[in-house]
């Protein structure tokens, strides 16, 4: 049997070849190139090119002295504002949609609608928000005509307002997607478990916290990690909403917007160094994803076996 599969081994190489060739050409070569230029002074002044001149670690050092960490913090805050409500709502909706006892009318309609915002490109969505929430825009007109507010709210004039808008947009765009992912996970749980819990007299809240939540942990962590990656790459929404400046006071400037402003001034050196920093952060996250997705023990059976063995040993010793 084993011998036979060795015969077929070359097919394995053949089948994965296109993937690796394309990856090496379009991702690995650029990566090496980017890293190389990060050690150079290389930009454009007016329409004249300056450099490339080798300057060692200077780009890295000047980035450390820049507001890079502040932009990192902005990115984190913006991500949290969008992600926390997103995961909470998605969990609740997933529980509702999969609860056989809860009769929801038009369930299919709701399932379709919640995913709709994910279809709009972020740039168009941001543009729409920008007009909707401008000081004299429709949202303010509606609130005023309802008599809820007297003077128009200046949404994009305050740090809180701008960040909330960005967070709200991210929430609206992604909660449907997350709901569907989690729903799939919940539906993967065996019905027997739910039936058993019913017999034990669990109410829906208990069931959610003691049965559903622990059992969908792998998908939940997967959602978390992919969302972190998405958050790290946050660009379109704040870029367009704040006209690329991250106003007010650059508090909505994300890391990728910072990268983009270097790309704009054709500062290949500095952009390269920033890319390397981003790569390191991604690398750390990669490690966690790898650890998690490579978990061969999704149901905890091996862990339990180990524990049993340990207890066995202890008993033997004792």
């Amino acid at each position, binding site marked *: 049997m084993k011998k036979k599969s060795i015969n077929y081994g070359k097919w394995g190489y053949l089948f994965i070849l296109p993937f690796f060739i394309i990856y090496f050409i379009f991702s690995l070569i650029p990566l090496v190139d980017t890293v190389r230029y990060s050690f150079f002074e290389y*930009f*454009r*002044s*007016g*329409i*004249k090119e*300056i450099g490339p001149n080798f300057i060692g670690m200077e780009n890295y050092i000047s980035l450390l002295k*820049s*507001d890079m960490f502040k932009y990192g913090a902005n990115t984190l805050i913006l991500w949290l504002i969008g992600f926390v409500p997103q995961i909470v709502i998605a969990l609740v909706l997933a529980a509702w949609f999969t609860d056989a006892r809860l009769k929801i009318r038009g369930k299919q309609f709701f399932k379709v609608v919640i995913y709709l915002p994910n279809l709009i490109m972020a740039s168009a969505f941001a543009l729409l928000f*920008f*007009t909707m929430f*401008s*000081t*004299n*825009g429709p949202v303010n007109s509606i609130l005023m005509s309802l008599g809820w507010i007297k003077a*128009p709210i*200046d949404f*994009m*004039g*305050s*740090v809180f307002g701008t960040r909330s808008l960005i967070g709200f947009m991210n929430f609206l765009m992604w909660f449907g997607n997350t709901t569907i992912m989690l729903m799939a996970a919940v539906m993967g749980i065996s019905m027997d478990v739910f039936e058993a819990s019913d017999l034990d007299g669990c109410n829906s809240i208990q069931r959610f916290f003691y049965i559903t939540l622990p059992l969908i942990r792998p998908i939940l962590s997967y959602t978390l990690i992919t969302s972190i990656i998405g958050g790290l790459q946050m660009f379109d929404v704040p870029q367009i909403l704040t*006209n*690329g*400046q991250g*106003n*007010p*006071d*650059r508090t909505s400037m994300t890391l990728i917007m910072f990268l983009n*402003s*270097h790309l*704009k*001034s054709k*500062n290949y050196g*500095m952009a390269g160094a920033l890319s390397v920093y981003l790569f390191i952060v991604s690398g750390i996250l990669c490690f966690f994803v790898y650890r998690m997705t490579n978990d061969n023990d999704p149901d905890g059976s091996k862990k339990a076996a180990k524990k049993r063995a340990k207890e066995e040993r202890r008993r033997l010793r004792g």
Partner: protein
Amino acid sequence: MKKRAVAVLLTAVMAVTGMSATVVCHAESEEGKVINIYSWNDEFRTRLEAIYPEVESTSSDGTVTTLKDGTEIHWIINPNQDGVYQQKLDEALLNQADASADDKVDIFLSETDYVFKYTDKDADVAMPLTDLGIDPDTDLADQYDFTRTTASDSDGVQRGSTWQCCPGTLVYRRDIAKEVFGTDDPAEVGEKVKDWDTMKETAAQLKEKGYYTFSSYADTFRLYGNSIAQSWVQPGETTITVDQKIMDWVNDSKEWLDAGYLNPTVKGQWNDDWNKAMGSQSKVFAFLFPAWGIDFTLSPNWDGDAGSWAVTNPPQEYNWGGSYIHAATGTDNPEHAKDIILAMTADKDNLLKISEDYSDFTNTKSGMAEAATDDANFSSEFLGGQNPFAYFAPVAENIKIAPLSAYDQGCVELIQNSFSDYFQGNVDFDKAKANFETAIKERYPEISEVTWPE
């Protein structure tokens, strides 16, 4: 005798070689079939169609204009904001040498804010006009001098030319003027806005009746920014010097905004709120606009009757905008480029026609002097029959253009952006300064230092 024979021979040889040289030259400078023109809107195209006799027709989508000799003008339009236009133009100019004849940039446009980047003699992307066969001193003698200075490199070699000269005026709502001052007569209103001190008293008066004088702090920026004493960056240096005038703008804007003379909900220009401030529901009394602003910005945004606005003198002379036409180095259509530049910027009749049809203030001193008194042809329907040229012309004659640098656009844009937070009370003064320094160094990596006035 011998001498004479030699001389005759020489002349003959010279004549022959000269002739053959002309022939060769002609063969070499065979004009290309496609003229690529880079611009950021169709302003140039519409004017060219109106006055250039060689134009045959333009395709319905506005991308190709065919000339009578069969040459096609391809219009390559990219928006100005976010630097998209320049990014694309720069790419094309850098590839100019390798591009095939039909892909070469032949003519491109630039604005006052960044004209210096392209007329830079080291970059050498815009041809000196003399190389095209235009003598600025005779051919362009009727142009306003400041426009010629603006289009010249640091050695004074003119590398571009404009049809448009953009002296600014103050344009105000007649109904508000009548209510607050009891008169809407341009001369009397002009008295109330003649300088900054008077202007401030008028602003207080407007505020009492619930009106804003201007819509946004960005509206007044040009008036200050045009009168800086030295350029943002001196040639060959890497230090940005913020002029005292700019700081005056910052201080005055803060004062005006806090006093309620400006509409606090309008942040900057070219956005939705600013557009709405020009509508009939708005409480804004006046805008500071040159001719194109009234034509393209105010008029489309105004939803009331024509004749509701009038023009008067601004508190300070200023210039805003101006599109310069350049022939790109390496063009395969130098003859067409020369012809177009001369037709668009040096022909008084053409320029007057542009003024009449599009209410542009055009670059002809004698022509504009005539227009100022020619109410029959130059009165504006939007302004209820007023002749705005009577107010533009004196401003144009008094404009002294501020010294330029290749960094002007970034400086102008980012200083407004950074201090916008300060005006709205999001950051303090020092933080706004620091933000400007960060942003400008990101935009121009070679900038090493920013010095502020005491």
